[in-house]
C-alpha cells in the first residue's frame, strides 16, 4: 500500500506534466528541431497516463474514499472559498485514463502526421495545453475548477481549429466554435452562481451533501440543472448548439480525434454525470436532456447520410453519438453514458486517426467521391477502420455493441417509443458508416493522379492499439446477461449516483439484441448492395438529388438558418447601433446641445449691432421692463 502523500504527489503531477510540456515546447518553439517537440509532448502525456494508471490501481478497490488534493487557495472572499484542489474518484479516474491514454496515442500519431508542418512545435504546445486543461476539467474538485478546464479546452479548441490560420474559413470555424461554446459557458457560469447562492459552496462534496436536503423537483435545483445543461449542450454539441462541431473539422485531423471526438466534447457528459445527484432531483431537466439527446442523435445521423467529406461524416457521427450519451444521461443512466464515452473514445479516435491516415495518404484530399479502393493500398488503415466501423455500428463483440446496447435497453425500460427512435438512429449509424467504409476503401481509386501509400509506423501503431481497445473495450462492462457483473458501472456508481432501475428479464434482453442484430444485418445488406454491388458513388453536388436528398446534403440548411436568424441580424444591429444610434442619435444629441448653445451665442451677438441708437433703445426698454417688473409683477 502506497502512502497517501505519495499518491497526492502523483495526483498533481498528472496535470503538471502536460503543462510543463506546453511551457517547454511553447517557449522553445523557435529552437526545438525536428521531432523533439513531438517527442517531448508525447512523453509528458505518456507519463501522465502511467501515473493515472498507478492512481487507478491504488484507488480502484470498492469503498476506497475519494482522494482530495489541495494545492492552494484560489479565491477566498466572503462565503466564497475556492481552493485549487483535485478530486480523484472513479469517475475522474476513468476520464483521466481516457484523456491521457487516448491523448498519448494521438500525440504519438501526430508526430508522424504533423511532421511536415512548419508550426509543428506550436501544434504540440497547444495539444499539451489542451491535455492540461482537460485534466483540470476532469480532476477539479469543484465547479469553478471544472469551469477553468472547461474554458481552457474551449480556448485550445479555438486555437487548434484555427491552427492553419492563413485560411479565413478555418478562422471562421474556430471563432464559431469558441462563441458557441461561450454561449453554453454563460449558462454554465450562471448555473454555478445560482448553485453557489443555493448551497454556499462550489465543491462537489459539499454541494452534493447539501443537495440531499432538497426535495425532488425543487424549482431551484431544476433551474440549476437547466443552466448546467446549457453549458453541456454547448460543449457537447447538442441541438441547438451543434453546428460548430462539423465546422471544427477545419483543424488538423489529430485535433479532431482528440478534441472533437474523444475528449473535449464529452466534457458535457462528464459534467452531467458528475452532477448526477443534482440531476436526479430534477426530473424535468432529465426529460429535456433525453429529448435533446435523442433528437440530436437522429438529426445528426440523418445529415451524416449524405455527407461527402470524410471528416464531416465522422463529425456528424460524433454529434449523433453524443446524442446517445445524452439520451443515457436523460434516462438517469450516468454510468452508461460514461461507458459509451469510453468506448466512443476508442472507436471514434480510431476512426478519425484512420481518416487522418487516409487523408495523409491522399495528399490532403477529404472528398470521399475522389477516393476508393484504398483497401489494398492502406491495409493497416483499412483493417483498423473496419474494426472501428463495426464497433460504432454496434455489432458484437465489438465495444460499441455493449455500450450502445446498454443505452437501448435503458430506453426500452423507459418507453417503447424512445427505444424505437433510438434503434432507428443506430440503424442510420450503421448505414452511413458502412457507406463510408465501402466508398473509401472498396472499388477503384477515383483520383488517378495520387499514389496513396500506407502511413509510417508511428501512425499505424496507435491505430492498432486503438483497434484492440475498440474491439475489447466492451468487455469492461460485461453485462450479467453474458455472465459478467457490470464491473464498469459498479466502479462508477459511487461517483455518478445513477438512477437504479429494475433489471430487464433476460429473455426480453435477448429478444431486443436479436431484433437489433437482425435489423442491423438488413441495413448492412442494403449498404452492401448499394455501394459495393452496384458500385454506387455519392453525388458530387446536390444538383442531381431529389428534394429530400438536397436538404440533407445541405445539412438541413441549419447553418444558413442560423446565419439568417443570428449572424446577419447581429451584424446589421452592430452597424445600425453605430451608424444610427451612436452617430445619428446620441452623439448628435450631445453635439446638439453644443450647437444649440452656439446658436444662442450667435443670437446674443446679434443684439450687439454696433448701432448706438439701438443700444440706447435697448437700455430704455430694459429700464421700462424692470419698472414694470418691480411694480406690477
Amino acid at each position, binding site marked *: 500500500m502506497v502512502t497517501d502523500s505519495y499518491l497526492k504527489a502523483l495526483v498533481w503531477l498528472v496535470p503538471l506534466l502536460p503543462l510543463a510540456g506546453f511551457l517547454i515546447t511553447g517557449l522553445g518553439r523557435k529552437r526545438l528541431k525536428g521531432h523533439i517537440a513531438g517527442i517531448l509532448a508525447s512523453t509528458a502525456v505518456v507519463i501522465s497516463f502511467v501515473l493515472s494508471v498507478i492512481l487507478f490501481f491504488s484507488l480502484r478497490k470498492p469503498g476506497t474514499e475519494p482522494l482530495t488534493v489541495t494545492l492552494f487557495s484560489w479565491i477566498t472572499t466572503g462565503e466564497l472559498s475556492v481552493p485549487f484542489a483535485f478530486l480523484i474518484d472513479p469517475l475522474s479516474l476513468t476520464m483521466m485514463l481516457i484523456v491521457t491514454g487516448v491523448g498519448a496515442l494521438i500525440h504519438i500519431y501526430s508526430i508522424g502526421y504533423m511532421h511536415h508542418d512548419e508550426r509543428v512545435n506550436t501544434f504540440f504546445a497547444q495539444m499539451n495545453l489542451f491535455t492540461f486543461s482537460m485534466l483540470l476539467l476532469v480532476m477539479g474538485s469543484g465547479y469553478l475548477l471544472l469551469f477553468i478546464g472547461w474554458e481552457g479546452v474551449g480556448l485550445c479548441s479555438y486555437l487548434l481549429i484555427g491552427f492553419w490560420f492563413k485560411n479565413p474559413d478555418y478562422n471562421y470555424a474556430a471563432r464559431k466554435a469558441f462563441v458557441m461554446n461561450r454561449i453554453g459557458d454563460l449558462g454554465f457560469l450562471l448555473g454555478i452562481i445560482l448553485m453557489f447562492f443555493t448551497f454556499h459552496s462550489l465543491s462537489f462534496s459539499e454541494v452534493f451533501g447539501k443537495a440531499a436536503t432538497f426535495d425532488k423537483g425543487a424549482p431551484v435545483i431544476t433551474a440549476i440543472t437547466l443552466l448546467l445543461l446549457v453549458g453541456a449542450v454547448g460543449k457537447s454539441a447538442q441541438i441547438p448548439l451543434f453546428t460548430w462541431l462539423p465546422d471544427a473539422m477545419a483543424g488538423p485531423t489529430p485535433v479532431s480525434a482528440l478534441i472533437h471526438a474523444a475528449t473535449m466534447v464529452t466534457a458535457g457528459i462528464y459534467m452531467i454525470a458528475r452532477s448526477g445527484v443534482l440531476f436526479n432531483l430534477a426530473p424535468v431537466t432529465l426529460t429535456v436532456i433525453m429529448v435533446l439527446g435523442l433528437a440530436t442523435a437522429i438529426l445528426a445521423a440523418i445529415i451524416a447520410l449524405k455527407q461527402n467529406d470524410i471528416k464531416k461524416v465522422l463529425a456528424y457521427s460524433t454529434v449523433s453519438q453524443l446524442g446517445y450519451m445524452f439520451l443515457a444521461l436523460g434516462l438517469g443512466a450516468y454510468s452508461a453514458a460514461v461507458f459509451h464515452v469510453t468506448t466512443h473514445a476508442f472507436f471514434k479516435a480510431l476512426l478519425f486517426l484512420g481518416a487522418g491516415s487516409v487523408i495523409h495518404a491522399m495528399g490532403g484530399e477529404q472528398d470521399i467521391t475522389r477516393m476508393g479502393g484504398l483497401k489494398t493500398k492502406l491495409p493497416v488503415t483499412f483493417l483498423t477502420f473496419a474494426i472501428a466501423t463495426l464497433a460504432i455500428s454496434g455489432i458484437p463483440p465489438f465495444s460499441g455493441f455493449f455500450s450502445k446496447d446498454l443505452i437501448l435497453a435503458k430506453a426500452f425500460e423507459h418507453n417503447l417509443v424512445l427505444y424505437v427512435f433510438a434503434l432507428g438512429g443506430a440503424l442510420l449509424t450503421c448505414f452511413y458508416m458502412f457507406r463510408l467504409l465501402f466508398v473509401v476503401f472498396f472499388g477503384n481509386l477515383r483520383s488517378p493522379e495520387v499514389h496513396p501509400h500506407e502511413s509510417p509506423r508511428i501512425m499505424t501503431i496507435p491505430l492498432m492499439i486503438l483497434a484492440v481497445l475498440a474491439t475489447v473495450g466492451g468487455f469492461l462492462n460485461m453485462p450479467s446477461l453474458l455472465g459478467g457483473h457490470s464491473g464498469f458501472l459498479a466502479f462508477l456508481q459511487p461517483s455518478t449516483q445513477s438512477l437504479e432501475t429494475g433489471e430487464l428479464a433476460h429473455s426480453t434482453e435477448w429478444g431486443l439484441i436479436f431484433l437489433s442484430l437482425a435489423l442491423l444485418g438488413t441495413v448492412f445488406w442494403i449498404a452492401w448492395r448499394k455501394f459495393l454491388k452496384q458500385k454506387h458513388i455519392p453525388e458530387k453536388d446536390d444538383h442531381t438529388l431529389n428534394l429530400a436528398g438536397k436538404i440533407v446534403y445541405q445539412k438541413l440548411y441549419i447553418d444558413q438558418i442560423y446565419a439568417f436568424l443570428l449572424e446577419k441580424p447581429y451584424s446589421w444591429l452592430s452597424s445600425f447601433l453605430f451608424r444610427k444610434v451612436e452617430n445619428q442619435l446620441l452623439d448628435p444629441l450631445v453635439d446638439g446641445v453644443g450647437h444649440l448653445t452656439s446658436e444662442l451665442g450667435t443670437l446674443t451677438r446679434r443684439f450687439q449691432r*454696433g448701432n448706438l441708437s439701438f443700444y440706447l*433703445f435697448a437700455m430704455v426698454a430694459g429700464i421700462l421692463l424692470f419698472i414694470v417688473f418691480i411694480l406690477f409683477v
Partner: protein
Amino acid sequence: MNEITSAIQIIPLEHYILLSIIMFSIGVLGVLFRRNTIVILMCIELMFNSVNLLLTAFAAYHSDLTGQVFVFFIMIVAAAEVAVGLSILVMMKRNVDSVDINQLNRLKW
C-alpha cells in the same frame, strides 16, 4: 430763503414731479429718436436739468439744503461732461465728417 421756499411750496409737489418727469421723458425720447449728436447732447442736458429741478423742489419741500447742494455738483459735473463730450464730437467730426450717431458702427457683434 424761507420766502423762496414757501414760494416754491405754493405749487403742489406733484406738479414739480410731473414736470420733471415730462422733461425727463422728453429728454429720453429725444435721445432715442434724434440722430444728430448735438441734439442728443442737448437732450441729455435736459434730463440733467429735470433732475436738478426735481432735487430743488424736493429740497424745498423737505427744507433740506443738501438737495440744492447736490444740484451744484450736478451742474459742475454736467459741464465737465459736456466739455469732454464735445471734444469727442469734434474728433468724430474729424474722423467721419458727420455728427450722426449711427455713423460710428464698425465695432459690433
